[in-house]
């Protein structure tokens, strides 16, 4: 089951350039939370802070707290935090030197050691959840580079799901996909929210409207407004949110 994730007064910067200004956002369990905003508004940095990837960038600093359930993510060690908070990136990035099977299995292998009895069951389970099993079950040992881009992205989701995280972060998961693959991914998100808390960053407003239960609007490193998706799109409180969702800028 998913756990609630909340960011409390999160600020982040690269060197002297501050990209997030004191953002607090509560992401409810088993909800899909969409983060929308124009490019450069700090959306990606925000979710990279949630699973502690931000700190791997040179000269990147951050302050604030991230709570997963009742645990502080920044008090855990980074490795177990990232195992509990899975992430899928904008560019499909399956490991090109590994087979499809190894791509899904690597997270488990890293966590639980090389030798495992139920590994192939786990891999099958993750691929089935990601709706990819029927397409790849006959060629698990092929290189992951041979899949189509849409399949690669679902493989990345399966890879993240194999660790059974509590939260799944999606950083513009459909930005390089064709409309059909996008549809498949969105259907998948819909199925996944029963089991996981999902945070999706997107610059595509229609996509946010389609998949998200709650939406937050970011602008220039600040969170302007958050609320249920319906409210935010139909009756925004802030003028800037209204301008953005009605397409006056961005």
């Amino acid at each position: 089951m998913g756990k609630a994730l909340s960011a409390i007064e999160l600020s982040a910067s690269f060197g002297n350039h501050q990209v997030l200004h004191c953002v607090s956002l509560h992401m409810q369990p088993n909800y899909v939370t969409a983060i929308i905003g124009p490019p450069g508004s700090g959306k990606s940095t925000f979710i990279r802070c949630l699973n502690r990837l931000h700190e791997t960038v040179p000269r990147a600093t951050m302050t604030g707290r991230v709570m997963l359930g009742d645990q502080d993510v920044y008090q855990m060690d980074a490795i177990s935090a990232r195992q509990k908070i899975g992430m899928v990136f904008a560019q499909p990035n399956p490991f090109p030197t590994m087979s499809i099977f190894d791509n899904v299995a690597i997270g488990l292998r890293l966590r639980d050691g090389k030798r495992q009895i139920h590994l192939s069951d786990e891999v099958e389970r993750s691929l089935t959840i990601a709706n990819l099993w029927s397409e790849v079950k006959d060629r698990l040992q092929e290189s992951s580079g041979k899949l189509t881009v849409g399949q690669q992205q679902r493989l990345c989701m399966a890879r993240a799901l194999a660790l059974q995280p509590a939260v799944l972060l999606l950083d513009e998961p459909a930005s390089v996909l064709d409309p059909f693959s996008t549809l498949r991914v969105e259907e998948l998100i819909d199925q996944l929210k029963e089991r996981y808390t999902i945070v999706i960053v997107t610059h595509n407003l229609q996509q946010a409207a389609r998949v998200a239960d709650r939406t937050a609007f970011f602008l220039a490193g600040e969170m302007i407004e958050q609320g249920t998706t319906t409210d935010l799109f139909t009756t925004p409180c802030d003028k800037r949110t209204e301008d953005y969702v009605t397409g006056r800028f961005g």
Partner: protein
Amino acid sequence: MVKQQRNNVGEMVFTTLVFGSAASVILLMGLIIVVLLVHALPAILRFGLAVLWTNQWLPIDQVFGMWPFIVGTVISSGIGVLFAAVVGTATAIVIVRIRLKWLRQLSAALVQWLSLIPSVVFGLWGIKFVAPILLQMLRSAPISAVSGSAEADGILLAGLTLAAMLLPTIVTVTRETLISVPPSIVDGALALGATLNEATLSIVIPYARRGIFSAILLALGRALGETIAVVMVIGSQPQLAYTLFTKTDTLTSVIATQWNHTQSVYGQSVLFEAGLLLFVLTFAFYTIARMYVPRSVAAARLQLW
């Protein structure tokens, strides 16, 4: 109309230059082959192919065998490339990981400068820096390991000197390959809960393996052809290397050292034959290696071949 005319003349000069230089390259190749063949011919006719596997070199008795030198070349290059590849790859990984920008660039610049350093300097380093250390270690080692050799000169010292010489080359080219690994792949591994080292070993190095392999091939080519650094430290004795401290010679260094000591009739011709062998090996090596070596901009700029 006049301008058109002038353009045509320029065009003609240009085309002549281009095709002339291409022809000069072919001519140069032909010249090398002809000269080597002409001078090696007496020895080839006299000794045949037997020189390849004869393992004695007694110019006074007219016995010439290149087997010791072939072995010497292979072993010294092998030691050099092995050390340089392991140490160099690790160094490149560390340099890429340095978080301070100025320090990262400074270390990269330092390594690039060192990759231009002449081999004489490495030879000097081998004699005055590594040899005393090796000797010290030899003295403290159990006697049985080395049968009373009082000098460090030998195939191991040559290998170590070559390793130091190849190190900057490998670091520079490997660093370039590592930088070109897409960061999103590393991010993907980190997001799965891999440590940076695990990501490096299981994702980055397999991804960059072609580049690392090409760096090693580049280094191997230089090691096989290196003369001076080897001559200065290998001890120069025409004998087969049985231990790591045997004084021996490589195909390149034997030409340099035996050149002025050839009293016999076939002495010089045999050295030309060694040169011919070296040439054939180089030809074969680069013909094969170029299929595996992807283009390296760093190597192109630093002229690392």
